[in-house]
């Protein structure tokens, strides 16, 4: 990495400030808010998959868990500050326990994928079946497949009547995404981040060098879950309802598709992929000629076949070949472990 940390932060801040200022002129803030939230969700998987080599099929589980935690806590507390914190902490703890079980058991690639997939399914099936009145946490009814509506949405900390919604809510989400992005940047530049890259490239070697691979993977997994949980809580505030569909396999699939299309092993790629594809889906939803799912699927197949590195790395290498910059070459070897198991 040639740029220093402060340069990186400066560029991020300038570009994101410009985008936050310009984008609402093009797209309504209501749509933009959800694009930003999906961007954060994409980033959470991009972090653990692209930089840690952990292919998680159940990122939606943490997203949904964050949303449900927020909704249940908000109904019980009636104020949004503590629920927001809980929505980050609960998925992180859940992921730490799950991750410890998997990584200390030395499970890898396919088995990891299956277990995360299965855990998502368990949550989905369980929450779906909680329609009866006996499933209550505090004052909140879980509501089964109907979900939980009518909880306290985001308010100014300390004042439950000062709701944040509409345009201001978009700015809150956008700033949250920028902060998370900067934290991820910092994390990857720290020694922890470098070790995560080392583990992605060659787990055995890192283990032989004396690093505790399982512990580091568990922590990284938990950080990814915390980000997904935050995205889930923001999504709950945006939609003002949480339903079991947040846990569904389709949701998990979409997160993976965003990462692949945007570009694995980059911080920006998953965000671009998420926002871009979600917007495309939104546009496609307005016509009824061709089925939406069909196009999503086609995009995924074509990307895997023809552009397996994703959009952002491809554009970056195109730009650097045009302008002759001598930036680091994105070699295929870097992603070997993450992509070939």
């Amino acid at each position, binding site marked *: 990495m040639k740029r220093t940390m402060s340069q990186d932060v400066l560029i991020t801040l300038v570009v994101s400030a410009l985008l936050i200022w310009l984008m609402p002129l093009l797209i309504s803030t209501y749509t933009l808010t959800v694009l930003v939230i999906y961007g954060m969700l994409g980033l959470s998987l991009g972090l653990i998959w692209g930089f840690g080599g952990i292919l998680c099929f159940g990122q939606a589980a943490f997203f949904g868990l964050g949303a449900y935690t927020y909704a249940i806590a908000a109904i019980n507390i009636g104020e949004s500050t503590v629920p927001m914190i809980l929505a980050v902490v609960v998925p992180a703890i859940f992921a730490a326990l799950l991750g410890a079980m998997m990584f200390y058991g030395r499970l890898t*690639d*396919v088995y990891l994928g299956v*277990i995360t997939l*299965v855990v998502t399914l368990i949550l989905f099936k369980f929450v779906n079946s909680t329609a009866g009145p006996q499933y209550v946490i505090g004052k909140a009814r879980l509501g089964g497949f109907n979900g939980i509506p009518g909880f306290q949405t985001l308010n100014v900390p300390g004042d439950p009547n000062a709701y944040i919604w509409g345009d201001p809510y978009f700015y809150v989400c956008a700033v949250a995404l920028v902060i998370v992005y900067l934290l991820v940047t910092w994390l990857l530049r720290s020694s922890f981040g470098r070790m995560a890259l080392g583990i992605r490239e060659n787990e055995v070697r890192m283990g032989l060098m004396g690093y505790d691979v399982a512990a580091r993977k568990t922590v990284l997994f938990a950080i990814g879950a915390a980000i997904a949980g935050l995205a889930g809580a923001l999504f709950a505030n945006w939609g003002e309802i949480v339903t079991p569909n947040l846990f569904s396999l389709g949701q998990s699939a979409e997160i993976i*598709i965003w990462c692949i299309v945007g570009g694995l092993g980059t911080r920006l790629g998953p965000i671009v992929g998420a926002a871009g594809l979600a917007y495309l889906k939104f546009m496609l939803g307005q016509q009824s000629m061709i089925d939406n799912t069909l196009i999503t699927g086609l995009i*995924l197949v074509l990307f895997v076949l023809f552009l397996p590195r994703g959009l952002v790395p491809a554009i970056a290498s195109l730009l650097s070949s045009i302008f002759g910059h001598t930036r680091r070459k994105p070699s295929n070897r870097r992603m070997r472990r993450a*992509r*070939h198991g």
Partner: protein
Amino acid sequence: MDLSFVILVEMLYAVASLVLISAGLAVVFGMMKVINLAHGEFMMMGGYATITAVGLGVNVFVAMLVIAPIVVGLIGLIVERLVIRHLYGRLVDTMLATWGLSLVFIGLATMIFGNTTTGISTPIPGFAVGDYQINGYNFFIIIVTILLVIAMYAVLRGTRAGLIARGTMQRSDMAAALGYSPDRIYMMTFFCGSALSGLAGAVLAPLVGLVPTSGGAYIAKAFITVIAGGPSLIAGLVSSATSFGLVNQIFTFAISPVIGEVALLIAAVVLLRAMPSGITGRFFKGKM
């Protein structure tokens, strides 16, 4: 007495349907190491092929046992030539590409058949055992499954084609040196795997209301069963389907169907954590 007979049949049926759901994936994943996430959609298409054929006036058993496997097998063949062929040996990429394919198939089915539930009635009437009513079709599924497992074993073990296929999956360079084209053998194996998925989807079609997204209900179960089974194809399939089927039915009878499903999934997590290379990675080593 009657109740225990009913429970026995239900248990056998649960195991048989798991074997049936997983058989196609076992060939494609267990032998070829291609994680086919479109497996559920292959089954869905098998169901639609049956319903369409029955609607055109074909005998229901011919539609299920002959037409559906051939149709789905041919679709699998096209998919293999267009997409999978380029991705052998790239585990994660095949997974993503087939996930994309599954979405494509769901989209196509929605466009062709519409987003409504279709179905056919079960061709075999139920009958009473004492005070209980048993679905006669369950017996048909159990018998089809037993015949299928025997046939798979016979083909893989006893025929020259099975020998060549197994050899190619183990060392494709050696098979090529002996004059067999690995490309064509992979193609044929994928055809067989897809045909098995189509057969499973067709046989199960009368029991479920078919919608374009019904493949999703199968894929996780199939995936879990095959992976928990481990490296041996048939022994793994039967042993893991038996364990999961029993767990599922015990909890279904004891508590509720939802808890039964959840118990199955938890059993899978525990099993994979305890035996990361599957049941046949530890027991029945080196069997078929």
